[in-house]
Each structure stands twice: as C-alpha cells, then as structure tokens.
C-alpha cells in the first residue's frame, strides 16, 4: 500500500510539472494575431463576373461580383478605434450588403502589419487577399525583393464601381503613375495622399503681424526671427526623437538645393564621394543655423513624441514641419481659436521649385496568391467612388486621389498639391530603397545633427564614413 502511495505521489508530481510546462509552452506559441476581426455571414445568389460586366458596359454597383460565396481576408495597418478603421468597417458592411455573396473579414494589425503579413506568407497559414499601408512600407515589405503583390494593370482597365469609365481614369493625374514606372506596373491603389508642409496657426500669425507666408529660406528665417522677437511662441516645434521628423529638415533642404534623387544617390554611392557635394554641407549648416539662433523650442532635445506637436497645437510653438497626417492626430485637441494653415517648404538660396511637392501615398494592395483578386479589387473600387473618397478624406488632412473630390477639411492641402509641377517621395524614398542604410547610418546621424550633437562638418564626415563602411560591410 505504501509502495502504491509512493508511485501515485511520483505520478502526480510529474503530471503537475508536465501540465505546467505544456501550458507555458502553449502560451508561448500564441499563433495568429488576436487583434479584433470583423465578419458577417452572407447568403444568396447570383451575378455577373467583373469581365462580363465590363464587356457589357454595365456598372457593378447594382450587381453582385461573386457567383458563389466568397470570403476576402483584409489585413489592415489600422489600429482599432482610429477613424479610418471605423470607416473601413462601414465600407465593409455597406459592400457586403450590396454583395451578399461576399464576406470580408477585416483584421486590424496596426502599423507593423507588414511584418505579420510576411510571417503569414512564410508560415503557410491563412494569408490575406487585401492589405493596406503606406506605399513606402508595402514596397519595402512586399515588392522590393520579390513581387508578392498582384500586378493590377488589367484590373485597372475595368469600369469604376459606379461609373462607366475605366477605373484608372477616375484618378487624379499622377497618382497612379507615381510608382508605376519604378515598379514596372501598377501594384498598389492609393486611397489618399499625404505631403509634408510647414504647419502653423493663422490666428497666431495674425496676432504677430505676419501677413505673408515665406516662399524663400531667407524669408522663412525672417519669419522665425519675428516670431521669436514677439515672445508669443517659439518659432519651431519638433519631436527630435523621431528619425523621420529629423529627416524632414535635411531631406527637404537637400531636395531644394540639389534636386530629387540626390540624397538617395549619395546613400547608394559606395565610395562616399557624393557627400562631398557642397549642397549637403550647406543643408546641414542651415539646420545648425536654426539651432544656433534658438528657433527650436527650448529643451526640445528632451522631447518625447508627441510632446513637440502638442506644444505646436497648444500654441507654445508657432510652426511644425510635418506630414499632413498631423491634421488627423491633433484634430480633437486644438483650441477653438486655432486656425490651421500650412505653407510649402521654401526655395533655398534661389534653388528648387516650390511646387516640387512630396507625394506620400497610402492605399491598397492585393496579394499575388489571392484566390479572388477580382472580388478584392471590386471592394477597392467601392471604397474609391467619389463619395467613398470624400468620406476618407473628410476624416482628416489627407488629399483625395479621385478626380473631382474636395475635402471638407484642409482643402488648402489639395490646392497646394494641385499646383504640383514636380514631385518626389518622402525622404527621397530612402526608407523603401535603402532601409538598412536608413536605420544604421542615416537616422542616427541626422538625429545627431538636428539635436545639436553633431556640427555640420562632423555630420558630413560621419555620413561619408558611414556610407563607405556600410557598403564595405556588405
């Protein structure tokens, strides 16, 4: 009996240990993302395929796209609760009501969705049909090394959701073509456009007596000095802990001084000799000038995002060089007296075209292996009717990509972009075309420059040495 008791005790102990190890292991193997998904069941029947509809010249709006039940997996970069996510859910519900054979399962993964999508593609489990993100990130994750997105050239020829015109002709000129040449085809469909501008409070400018926005760098410095002398606010707000936000200053200055593509080309030059171009040193010196003249708000070096943009929104700083997403981020936090306005990055030393604007697109992509690309594309077309685009752009400060659409908010951004004569990608497209260099060499040094740790000549030396060393290491 005692022997049996002993055996039972041993068995019990081992079972407890095994159960603990198993539960810990299973907890560690969490598997697929648990972010919220939305779905609805559908029933019903029949229809017309996209090709037949296009051939008949009929719109797809009133007819269902799928002849039998189809499920589309949409993995979005949105976070639960953000305005675009709420709108996405509305689009999905409306589309499914019009197309009862289609079920769209939306999974909101947040801004690092691209990593999760690549993991799913490598893992062989459920893969998405439809994704969205900034084009820079989609290119970096899904198109740079191998084309994981579907070429949409053929589908773009099909009619728009609610019009008898090819879908591609509903877009503002230049919006689809922005990436087409680089990629050798259309792989992504934009749903809005951002740009970066100098944002300011018109009411504050009126108080200080600034009646004209600066269009040259010297005029910009005069505006900074006027604001500083007024004592009402610091001239410039910044969140210097963000690499992108520090890069805005340097990349815009080099784009004006040297033209599009020169910064990227310098990062690709294995000899490092491109950094000897005096334009780069000039750009770095102009940033140093802002620091020496104390145009950045006091103690900005210790700011942790979003402290800088909060200072701007609350009137402690007058101007903020920022992407137009700021219009969404601060929309609910502005005082009533705040009159949001923005001006373009000025020309510098007589160089650069003020209507050479940054175009930063965000939009959809369809995975190459999607079993129902035409259905996913039909949903895209639904979102990008003129009415849909208006709803997207009314959320914040995005500019519409669809012809004839005006935004209820920040129309001045659309007006600025409408004057575009030349265009370039944010940060000279370095994040998409040279992401390792961006992380390992460029961002640490440009943050050092903007934070005042590196003098201009030190910055150029470090960039040159870093470029040589980076490529030698490859």
């Amino acid at each position, binding site marked *: 009996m005692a022997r049996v008791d002993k055996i039972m005790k*041993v068995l019990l102990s081992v079972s407890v240990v095994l159960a603990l190890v198993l539960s810990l292991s299973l907890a560690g193997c969490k598997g697929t993302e648990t972010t919220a998904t939305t779905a609805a069941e559908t029933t019903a029947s029949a229809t017309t395929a996209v090709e037949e509809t296009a051939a008949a010249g009929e719109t797809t709006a009133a007819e269902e796209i799928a002849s039998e039940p189809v499920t589309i997996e949409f993995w979005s970069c949105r976070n639960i609760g953000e305005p675009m996510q709420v709108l996405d859910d509305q689009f999905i519900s409306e589309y499914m009501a019009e197309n009862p054979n289609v079920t769209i399962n939306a999974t909101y993964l947040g801004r690092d969705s691209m990593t999760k999508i690549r993991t799913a593609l490598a893992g062989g489990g459920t893969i998405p049909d439809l994704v969205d993100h900034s084009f820079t990130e989609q290119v970096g994750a899904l198109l740079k090394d191998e084309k994981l997105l579907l070429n949409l050239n053929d589908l773009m020829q099909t009619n728009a959701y609610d019009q008898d015109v090819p879908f591609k002709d509903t877009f503002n000129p230049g919006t689809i073509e922005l990436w087409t040449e680089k990629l050798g085809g259309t792989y992504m469909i934009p749903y809005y456009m951002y740009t970066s501008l100098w944002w300011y409070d018109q009411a504050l400018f009126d108080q200080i007596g600034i009646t004209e926005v600066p269009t040259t760098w010297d005029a910009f410095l005069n505006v900074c000095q006027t604001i500083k002398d007024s004592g009402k606010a610091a001239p410039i707000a910044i969140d210097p802990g963000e690499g992108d936000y520090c890069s805005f200053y340097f990349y815009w200055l080099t784009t004006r001084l040297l033209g599009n593509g020169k910064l990227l080309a310098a990062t690709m030059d294995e000899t490092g000799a491109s950094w000897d171009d005096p334009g780069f040193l000039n750009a770095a010196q102009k940033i140093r000038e802002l620091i020496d003249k104390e145009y950045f708000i006091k103690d900005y070096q210790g700011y942790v995002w979003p402290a800088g943009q909060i200072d701007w929104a609350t009137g402690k700083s007058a101007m903020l060089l920022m992407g137009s997403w700021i219009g969404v981020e601060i929309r609910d936090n502005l005082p009533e007296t705040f009159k949001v306005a923005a001006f373009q990055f000025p020309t510098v030393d007589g160089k650069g075209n003020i209507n050479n604007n940054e175009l930063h697109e965000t939009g959809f992509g369809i995975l190459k292996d999607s079993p129902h690309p035409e259905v996913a594309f039909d949903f895209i077309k639904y979102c990008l009717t003129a009415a849909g685009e208006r709803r997207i752009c009314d959320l914040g400060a995005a500019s519409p990509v669809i012809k004839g659409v005006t935004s209820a908010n920040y129309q001045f951004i659309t007006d600025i972009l409408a004057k575009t004569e030349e265009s370039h990608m944010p940060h000279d497209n370095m994040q998409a075309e040279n992401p390792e260099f961006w992380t390992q060499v460029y961002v640490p040094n440009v943050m050092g420059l903007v934070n005042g740790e590196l003098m201009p000549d030190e910055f150029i030396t470090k960039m040159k040495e870093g470029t040589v060393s980076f490529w030698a*290491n490859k």
Partner: protein
Amino acid sequence: MRKKISILWFLVPVTILYLGFFMYPVINSIFVSFFNWSGFSSNMVFEGIGNYRELFNDPLFQLTMKNTAIYMFFGGILTFILALIFVFIFNNGIRFKKFFRAVIFLPNIIALIALVTIWNFIYNPNFGLINGILRAIGLDILTRPWTAPNRAIWAVLVATVWIHAGFYTIILLSGAEKIPPYYYEASGLDGANRYQKFFKITMPLIWEELRIAVTLWLITSVKMFEFIYAFGSSGYPSEKIWTGTVYMYILSFGKRTVIYRLGYASALAVILLIIIMITTAVTSRIFRRQAIEY
C-alpha cells in the same frame, strides 16, 4: 537502480518538450546565423561567419553593446545598492513591513506601458515632475531636457533601476529572513552595531541569494527590451538607448522601416547568448564558496 530507471521514464515527456520548445530554437538560431536570410522566404544563402564579421564592423552593434554594458554594470550596481538598503531597513524592524514590501514590489506588477507613460511624464522638460519640482523650489537652473540624446540612456537607466530594485529586494530579503535571530543577539551582546551586523552577518549569510540575484540581473540586463522599445516614440526609440535585444528585433522585424535580416539578427542573438554564458560563469566563480548551513 531499477527505481531510478523507472523514474527516468517519467522525465522523458518533459525532456522532449524542453528540447522541442527551448533547445531546438536555440540550435536553429545558431544555424540561421550562418546564412543571409530574410526569414520570410526560402532563399537562404550560406555566409559562413560573414554575418559575424559584418556585426563587429557595425557601429550600431558597437553602440548597443556599450549600452548593454552600461545597463548591466551601472544598472546592476545601483539596483543592488538600493535593494541592499531596503534589506537593511527591513531587517532592522520597520513598522508596516508588509505594506512597504508591497509598495517597492509594485513596479513589477504594473503594466510596462503604464510605467513608460509615467516616466515620459516625469522627464518631460515642460510639465514633467522633475523639472516642475525644481522650478517650484526656485532651482530653474537645474532643469534639463532629461531625455536629450546625450543623457537619454541615464534617464532610462534610472527608470529601470526603479522598476527592478523591488524584485531583487524580495529575493535578498527571502535569504535575510531565514537567518536565525540568535546570530544578531549574540553579536549585539558583543557590542556590534546595526551596520556591523548587516555587513558581518547578513551579507555573508545571504551570499547564495545574492549570487542568484546577480545572475538573474545579468541575464535581465542583456535581455532588456520592453521598456526601452516602448520608451520614446511611436516609431522606435532613439538608438542612443538601444540594447542588443532591441537592435536584434529591429533587424528581424523592423517596425516602420522594414529590414528583415533574420540571419544577421540571429548572429547578434548568438553573441548575446555567449555574453550571458560568460557573465554567469564568471559570476558563479566569483560567488563560489563553501555552503553555510544553519
């Protein structure tokens, strides 16, 4: 002998689980570190020690190793000084001991993102707690941007010491509370004061707990990730505060700027593993001595 063999059979399932879920990923990481591989495709190119060679020439790797060393040594010294002070106070009979013990352990049970938010507020140069107090007492001259690049790592260090000191206090206290009181009584009769009792009795007798705590700290400091990754921004924090683990994550998965170099990141992981193994071996050697039983 038969009994021992029959017991061993019960260890087989656990061993299989351990090998599958712990040892296999480690061995696989070492294998992957010799390849140029994104982690997301089938294209693995053998590099030999190429990733390691690149790593030692990578200025960011050098910076993260320096940062890891700062967290490990300075963080460890400050954490254990604080923990030992707490042990000294608790051992000398403080009222409401359980309450204070719970308070100092509190940071270990609060969600890390909440702690990051708290410390971001504390360090804010405009309305933060530190600068606010300094201004309130007329010491404006001492206000600073505490998270400026040249001092960000020290700001994070202070926060991590605050977070971890309580945990190590509990470990050391568990040893201190086992010490029989007659040791203190006898030394008191010989005229020892409380400080002498602490250094001559308490410290030697919690040596084993100290060894365990120091080993745990060394591992924790090398693996430090969550607080640092969350501290700073919506993107990822300034590289001034990165540890090797943060850099490893960014190389593997990125966040906004996609890099996807799992092979290279695995080489970094192997280096971190070697660092942990060496430091724990050295610690065991330093703390080795004859066991004291009482």
